[in-house]
C-alpha cells in the first residue's frame, strides 16, 4: 500500500548550512511517526518543507502517492495535510470558535459567499465546537483567541488541525511551554488520535515520544541517522552515541 506520506531525498541549505541533507522516510496510514533530534537539528525546517512554507532545494514529497512538492501551503492543506506551529500561530482577534470554524469552512464549500451571516451557519459551528471539545477547550468557544493562556492556545492549534479532518497531521512540539496538567491532557488527546490518522510528531519529551510513537526517526545535523521502532532506536548504538547517550548515560 502507498504510504500516507513519503519523503525522498529532501535537501535544503541556508547559505553554507545544510539543514536537510537527503532526508528520506515513509509514514504509513495510521502511523504515529516521531522525529527527534537535538536543538537546531533541522526538525522545524523539515516540517516547514512538508507543509509548504519553505521550498526544498531538492527532493520530493508525496502525499498518498501524489507529488505535492510544488504545491502551495494552502493547496496541501486542502489535500489533507494539517500542521501545528512550534511558535503558536492563531487568529488572535477572533474567538476560539471562529478560529476553528474557519478551518471547517475551508473544506466545506465556497467561501465566495457574501451575504449570508457565517455566524449562523450551524454546520460550521457544530463541527468547530466538536473539535474544540476534543482538544479540551469546551466552554472556551466565545473567548477571544488572543486572551487564551499559552497552553490553551496550543490546544486551540490542535483543535484547528482536527477540524481540517486531515489525512496527515504534522505536530511541531505541541507540548512546548505547556504546564504539567495541560501537557498530560494534550498527550491523552494525541494518544486518542493514534490509528485514526497519520501523525508526524516532533517532541523533546522523550518519555512521551517513546511511549506514543510507532516508529521514530532521529535527525542530527540535517541527516536522518536512524529510523525504527522505539525499542530498535533505544538499542541503536549510533543513536546513543550521537544523541541519546548524553541523556541516558549509556
Amino acid at each position: 500500500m502507498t504510504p500516507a506520506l513519503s519523503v525522498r531525498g529532501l535537501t535544503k541549505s541556508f547559505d553554507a548550512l545544510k539543514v536537510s541533507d537527503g532526508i528520506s522516510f515513509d509514514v504509513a496510514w495510521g502511523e504515529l511517526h516521531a522525529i527527534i533530534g537535538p536543538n537546531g537539528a533541522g526538525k522545524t525546517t523539515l516540517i516547514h518543507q512538508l507543509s509548504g512554507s519553505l521550498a526544498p532545494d531538492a527532493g520530493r514529497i508525496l502525499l498518498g502517492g501524489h507529488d505535492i512538492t510544488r504545491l502551495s501551503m494552502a493547496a496541501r492543506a486542502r489535500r489533507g495535510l494539517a500542521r501545528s506551529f512550534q511558535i503558536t500561530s492563531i487568529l488572535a482577534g477572533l474567538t476560539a470558535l471562529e478560529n476553528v470554524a474557519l478551518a471547517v469552512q475551508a473544506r466545506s464549500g465556497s467561501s465566495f459567499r457574501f451575504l449570508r451571516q457565517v455566524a449562523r451557519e450551524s454546520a460550521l459551528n457544530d463541527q468547530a465546537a466538536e473539535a474544540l471539545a476534543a482538544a479540551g477547550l469546551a466552554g472556551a468557544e466565545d473567548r477571544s483567541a488572543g486572551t487564551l493562556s499559552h497552553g490553551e492556545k496550543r490546544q486551540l492549534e490542535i483543535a484547528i488541525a482536527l477540524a481540517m479532518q486531515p489525512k496527515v497531521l504534522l505536530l511541531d512540539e505541541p507540548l512546548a511551554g505547556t504546564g504539567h496538567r495541560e501537557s498530560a491532557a494534550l498527550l491523552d488527546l494525541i494518544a486518542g488520535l493514534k490509528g485514526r490518522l497519520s501523525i508526524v510528531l516532533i517532541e523533546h519529551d522523550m518519555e512521551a515520544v517513546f511511549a506514543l510513537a510507532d516508529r521514530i526517526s532521529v535527525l542530527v545535523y540535517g541527516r536522518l541517522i536512524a529510523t525504527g521502532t522505539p525499542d530498535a532506536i533505544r538499542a541503536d548504538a549510533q543513536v546513543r552515541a550521537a544523541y541519546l547517550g548524553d541523556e541516558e548515560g549509556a
Partner: protein
Amino acid sequence: MRLSDRAMLVTFAVLLPMPALFSAMGEPFLTVVLTRALIFAIAALSLDLILGFGAMVSFGHAAYLGIGAYAAGILAANGVTGLEVQLPVALAAAGAFALVTGAISLRTRGVHFIMITLAFGQMAYFLMSSLSAYGGDDGMALAGRSTLFGADPFGSSLRFFYVTLALLAGIWALLRAVTRSRFGRVLTGTRENETRMQAIGFSPFGYRLTAYAISGMIASVAGVLLANHAAFVSPSYMGWARSGEMIAMVVLGGMGTLTGPVLGAIAFILSEEALARLTTHWRLPFGAAVVLAVLFTRGGLLGALRGRR
C-alpha cells in the same frame, strides 16, 4: 445589538431631521455641507473594507472617487446624464481598474503596498490631467446634473441630501452583511494571520483582490455623487492628498467597525468647514487636531464611545 450597530442607527436617526433643523436655523447651506460629509462617509466606508477588515493600506483610494466623478463628467459632456448608464459605467471602470492594479499591488505587503497603490493613484491623476478634451489640469464643469430614468434626484439640496443618506444606509447595510459573511470572515482572518489562513487551506490573494475591487467600486459611487455635488470634476479629486484624507477619516472614526468611518468622515468634513470659517490659516490647526484625535482616541471615535480602558 452590537455597540457599533446601535451607534449607526442613532447616527441615522440624528441625520434624518437635520435639513429641517438647518432651515429653521436659517442656515440651509449646512445641508449642502452635510451632504458632502455623507458622500465622503460612503468613500470612507469603502476604504474601511480593505483597510480595517483586510489590513490593506491603500494610499490610492481617491483614484476611485475620481473614476466615478469622471464617468459622470465625461458621459454628461457627451449628453448621457442618466444614472442608469453613469453608475454601471462608473462601477465597471472602477472594478476594472481595481482588478488590474490590485492584481499587481497585492503581490506586495506593508510599505511596498502603500507605495505601489500611491503610484497607481498618481498615474490615474496624471492621466486625467492630460485629458485636454475634458478640461485637463483645470477640470471641467459638469455639463448636466445626473438624472435617473428622467427624474431629477439631485434637483434640490434637500433631495440630494436624502438620496445620499439613503445610498449611505444601503451601502452600510451591504458592507455589514459582507463583513459578516463567509467571505468577510476569511478577509478578517487574512488580516489577523496570513500564514495561519494558508495553513488551513485558504489562498489569500483571491479574497484580497475581490475585497479590493468591491471597495473601489463603492468608492466610485461616491465619485458620481461628488461630481454632482460640486457640479464640477477635476483631477484634484484623485490626488494623494485626498487619499490621505480618506485614510485619516477611517482611522479617526475607528478602523474595522463600519460605523467608525461614517462618524470619522462627518467629523472630518464638518470640522474642516468650521475651522475654514474661523481662520484662513485653518490647515495647520486642523492637521494638529486630526493627529491629536487619532492619538487620544484609541480605536477612533467609536473606540472613545466604548469607553477608555
